[in-house]
């Protein structure tokens, strides 16, 4: 049926922006994420207190005027620590997902385009990485190399590369069969140009969807590792670490564990909504083509 109306399209980011705004789920989720991110970025200015400042007298105090979310077992302001903890989560998750996108995406496109033995070997390697749950990989890396932020990022990146490679490879396989790719070769374009200029933009949609979902996974992993004590060391504020402390003091002050948990919940909720919304808007358009 040739009855479909045409819609105007521009570049990927603008498309993303428009689909965000049009899709309620995506914009709601995106809004949440944006708020949390801003909170994290501007933590130094937004926190009412120094997150490391202890006050023994205020140990395990409940919410008060000065300390809206109460104090932890060292008397530190929970609100400030949540804001600063967000920075760690934001940093770790963003950096690791970005690296995974670049490396995984490149591997996926190369693998799908080149095919043959290179493809088989690469995908086998990806399968190996995929068999490690992120948490287990985190444990391994941290246990062997030490609990630094850098190693945390390394662990998460290693597990994230494989899904991104797969998700970049699948559309590459279909797209490279399309005539416009062959046209490019007939016109003398180099393989690099074809991969970057022609295949990549057609793969970006899927990658973006996966990226938002993996940010959630990365945050959860960092929190989990910090919870079991293998993440960023105290006294740095991290959400996982705060939950751990809350866990230890749960009988005396349950709110200690509740607030950082809610923070994680909200961010992951927002990211998942964002990812789902993006997936809904990008899929029908892809099928349209």
């Amino acid at each position, binding site marked *: 049926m040739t009855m479909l109306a045409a819609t*105007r399209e521009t570049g990927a980011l603008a498309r993303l922006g428009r689909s965000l705004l049009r899709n309620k789920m995506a914009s709601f989720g995106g809004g949440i994420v944006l708020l949390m991110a801003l909170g994290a970025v501007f933590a130094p200015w937004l926190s009412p207190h120094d997150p490391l400042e202890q006050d023994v007298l205020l140990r395990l105090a409940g919410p008060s005027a000065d300390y809206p979310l109460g104090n932890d077992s060292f008397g530190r302001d929970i609100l400030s620590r949540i804001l600063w903890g967000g920075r760690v989560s934001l940093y770790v998750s963003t950096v690791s997902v970005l690296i995974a996108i670049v490396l995984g995406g490149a591997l996926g496109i190369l693998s799908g385009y080149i095919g043959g033995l290179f493809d088989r070997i690469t995908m086998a390697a990806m399968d190996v990485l995929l068999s490690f749950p992120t948490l287990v990989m985190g444990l391994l890396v941290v246990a062997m190399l030490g609990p630094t932020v850098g190693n945390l990022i390394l662990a998460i990146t290693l597990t994230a590369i494989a899904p991104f490679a797969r998700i970049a490879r699948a559309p590459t396989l279909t797209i490279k069969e*399309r005539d416009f790719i*062959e046209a490019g070769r007939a*016109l003398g374009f180099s393989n690099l140009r074809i991969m970057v200029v*022609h295949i990549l933009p057609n793969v970006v949609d899927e990658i973006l969807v996966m990226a938002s979902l993996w940010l959630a996974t990365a945050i959860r992993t960092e929190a989990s590792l910090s919870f079991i004590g293998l993440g960023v060391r105290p006294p740095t504020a991290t959400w996982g670490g705060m939950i751990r402390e809350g866990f230890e003091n749960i009988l005396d002050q349950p709110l200690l564990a509740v607030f950082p948990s809610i923070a994680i919940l909200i961010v992951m909720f927002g990211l998942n909504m964002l990812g789902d919304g993006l997936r809904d808007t990008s899929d029908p358009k892809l099928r349209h083509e």
Partner: protein
Amino acid sequence: MSNAILEVESLSKTYAARRGFMGGQIAMVRALSDVSFSVSAGEAFGLVGESGCGKSTAGRAILRLIEADSGTVRFKGESVFDADAGRLRRLRRQMQIVFQDPYSSLNPRRTIGQTLSEPMRVHGTGSAREISATVHEVLGEVGMPRDAAEKYPHEFSGGQRQRIGIARALVLRPELIIADEPVSALDVSIQAQILVLLRNLQQQRRLSFVFISHDLGVVRHFCRSVAVMYLGHIVERGPVPAIFDEPLHPYTRALRNASPVPDPAAKVTMAKLEGEVASALAPPSGCHFHPRCPHATDLCRRVYPPWVEVSKDRGVACHLYPAGSAAMSENRETTP
């Protein structure tokens, strides 16, 4: 021969195909066997046949989009297969391809302007202003409005996309165009528009064509000479319209008879052509057409017929026309 812009000799290509459960077995598919023909400058040369005959493979092998196993292709006397990367790149500017499927031939994420200007930028054929001017000029030549350059492929119909695909093939000013079923995916009225466009372009730019199609009517209209292919071989070659009015090879005759014609008095005749097009995986012995041929003899089952030039520009591979015979008058049937 000296006027030939393209000379193809003994082109062969075999694929390894995986068969059987979990792809355990490997079978050889002979997509092209000893294909030879030449195209004169400014001529439209047709390659016809049904699916699996190898015509598309031949077109791609000529441009080295697929690497042939053996044979030679000469473009204006220069060997295409021996060219190194740099020479090949330059050759590619002169030989271009137009595809069948207008919905697959354009990158959906690029504007028309980007798609058309990219080849020129890659080859460095001019300044940004010159490139832009060429883009608009070529759009005009194919009957598209100027503002098409800012739009995306999905904003256009199939016929318009096909025009854009033709425009892309023209921006580097090639001399030879391989047209792979350029009108097969289009409606009848759009088909005619594109055929007229191609004819005009051929005259204005002095283009040569290798016109690949399964539609004999279209080939008769557009091409000056044609080669008929069956299971990787050329079975007959000759000038249009003689080859359709008086086909020599039984397959050519069957193909012509089976082609529907908009005239109720000329109903499609099947005559005695039974059976399927044999699979290229296990082509019949001897002449590949013998299982379906009403004239098959024992010789046909055993030996592949040699190519015979029955006249200056007609050739056929069929035991009905042994070498040296004045075959033209003999085997022409009175009933078409």
